[in-house]
């Protein structure tokens, strides 16, 4: 029993990180149908900038805010310098541009900062919380809370605010959106800024657990992408559930089957789900007329 609970705690910890990364994918995807593969780099930047700002003497909360603001700026710059000039290109080209951006950001990070691993202190100490023989770190609770808050925020944003609806409208039909007075250029800028900020927040929350170096982004982006696909791309609820399910799958496989097959089992389950539900668990059915 206490073993099962430990596996669940482990899965929630890892899953909440995946969920935060997956949530970051949703805004850009909803605005442009682009899966932004530089999302993992936003997470990495959030962690790295916080580390170095903190080392330079800023208090941790201030360093974290600075990291989120700078990363949002990087997101906006990515849109202005790489995505906007390629407007009208097919979505696949835009996705490849984001892969290029991810490599560029990694290279720049190792030149500007360094190639070492880093972490900063957990927000509420390292004394584990004990529940019925199992333990969870306070920082995991921060990550889980962060994922839930971002989810609620995004869900309200897309369903209750005019700006959120403008984002969805832009993805749906850019020309029509412009005709009804939506400034689609601004919507894209906002989407990249917000996505990057969410990514950076994930980095800030997760770094005390996962550690950070210039190259952690790729693996995070892949796991986050898998989680988003499982839950339904572009759906905040899907990102949250997908992330947690993926984390739990890995932890339970490692605990009950074998750690060797952890990643394989997780991906097999995802494939299985997508065979039955190609849109993901909460994805919208889309029909295309031919």
């Amino acid at each position, binding site marked *: 029993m206490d073993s099962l609970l430990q*596996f669940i705690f*482990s899965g929630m910890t*890892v899953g909440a990180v995946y969920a935060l990364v997956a949530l970051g994918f949703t805004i850009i995807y909803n605005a442009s149908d682009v899966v932004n593969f530089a999302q993992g780099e936003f997470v990495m930047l959030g962690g790295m900038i916080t580390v170095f700002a903190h080392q330079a003497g800023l208090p941790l909360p201030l360093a974290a805010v600075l990291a989120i603001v700078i990363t949002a700026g990087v997101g906006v710059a990515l849109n202005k310098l790489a995505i906007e000039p390629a407007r009208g290109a097919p979505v696949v080209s835009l996705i490849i541009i984001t892969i290029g951006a991810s490599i560029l950001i990694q290279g720049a990070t190792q*030149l500007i900062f360094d190639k070492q691993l880093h972490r900063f202190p957990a927000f509420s100490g*390292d004394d584990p919380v004990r529940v019925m023989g199992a333990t969870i770190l306070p920082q995991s609770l921060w990550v889980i809370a962060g994922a839930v808050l971002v989810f609620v925020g995004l869900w309200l944003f897309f369903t209750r605010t005019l700006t959120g609806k403008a984002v969805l409208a832009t993805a749906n039909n850019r020309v029509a959106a412009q005709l009804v007075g939506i400034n689609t250029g601004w919507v894209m800028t906002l989407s990249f800024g917000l996505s990057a900020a969410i990514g950076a927040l994930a980095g800030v929350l997760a770094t005390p657990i996962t550690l950070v170096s210039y190259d952690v982004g790729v693996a995070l982006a892949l796991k986050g992408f898998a989680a988003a696909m499982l839950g339904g791309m572009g759906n905040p609820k899907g990102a949250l559930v997908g992330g947690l399910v993926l984390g739990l799958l890995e*932890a*339970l496989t*490692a*605990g009950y089957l074998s*750690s060797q097959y952890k990643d394989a089992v997780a991906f097999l389950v995802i494939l299985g789900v997508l065979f039955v539900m190609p849109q993901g668990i909460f994805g919208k059915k889309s029909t295309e007329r031919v």
Partner: protein
Amino acid sequence: MKLLTRTTLAVLATGVAFPLAAQAEIRLGASVSATGPAAFLGDPEAKTIQMMVEQINASGGIDGEEIALSLYDDGGDPNKARTFATRLVEDDEVVAIIGGSTTGTTMSILDVAEDEGIPFVSLAGAISIIDPVREYVFKTPHTDRMACEKIFTDMQAQGITKIGLISGTDGFGASMQAQCKEVAGDHGIEIVADETYGPQDADVTPQLTRIRNSEGVQAVLNPGFGQGPAIVTRNFDQLGFEIPLYQSHGVASNAFIELAGAESAEGVRLPGTALLIAELLDESDPQYQVVTDYTAAYKEKYNQEPSTFAGYAHDAVMLVVDAIKRAGEAEPDAIRDALEETQNFVGTTGTYSFSPEDHLGLDLTAFRMLEISDGDWKQLN
């Protein structure tokens, strides 16, 4: 990225001071993984190689001849390493090669070195580099098999017979896991749990829980490097284990204590080199001088502590320089022969004595069993 790599290379290349007065010069080649997934190995290695060459040239070179260094960054890519090795031999006409931060890149370079008859000192860990012995290939790091033996010897002394293994699935972790399983029996150690984790995993409590539930487990050993061992150590502490945790030489650096946290790392044991405990070394220690001088110089130049891996590069450069001095000429075959005749050469990793049958030249005394206590290293005797 290509552009970035090129600029890095340009920067690396300009780090070499070419003498204005054209004397005869000794051409030394190097290819390390200064960027890419093995950057934490190659970056301190590249810095060390540059620093050593500058130092030697500043003090008048080798018998009055300056060293001209050609240093390339292969980014951990075996194909690039092969290209650079070929370039070093054919275009730069080097007389010896140092490098191969990883076993993968080393295997590429050693093919070229063997074909062209250029002595090559590798900085990678795997035993297969020097076993079977190849004529022109030497290496400075301990093998992971030696690390396993050192750890198991210590366990034996503690009366430990049953252990749980938790290994990284990266090259280093997988290789050491296999070597440890091979030699465990020789030391009366039974592996009762054999778990793994991915190099980027953020939580390994399920694997550790399985180990804890294994019958009669008396210690846990974690072969791995990078972030994995820090996470294993933190989770180990989180779960409140009452048995000792052993780490490998792959995390023998102060950065590991920082990442894992002094509290979590308390009591962790691992085999490390003299370099790691430079401050603790007795002045009578044979390695005292070389370790202290090198650490001081590195800290002054780069403002950070040299890692064990940086020490491997230091030893490789000094072994080649020593061989050139003894050979009296900078010709590849003469250097190779002089390298093989090296006896009792004191480096940061240990004391090297090569022979035609042994191109590593270290024994278990090169490792020191260390324990982390109060956020610092303590030598166990």
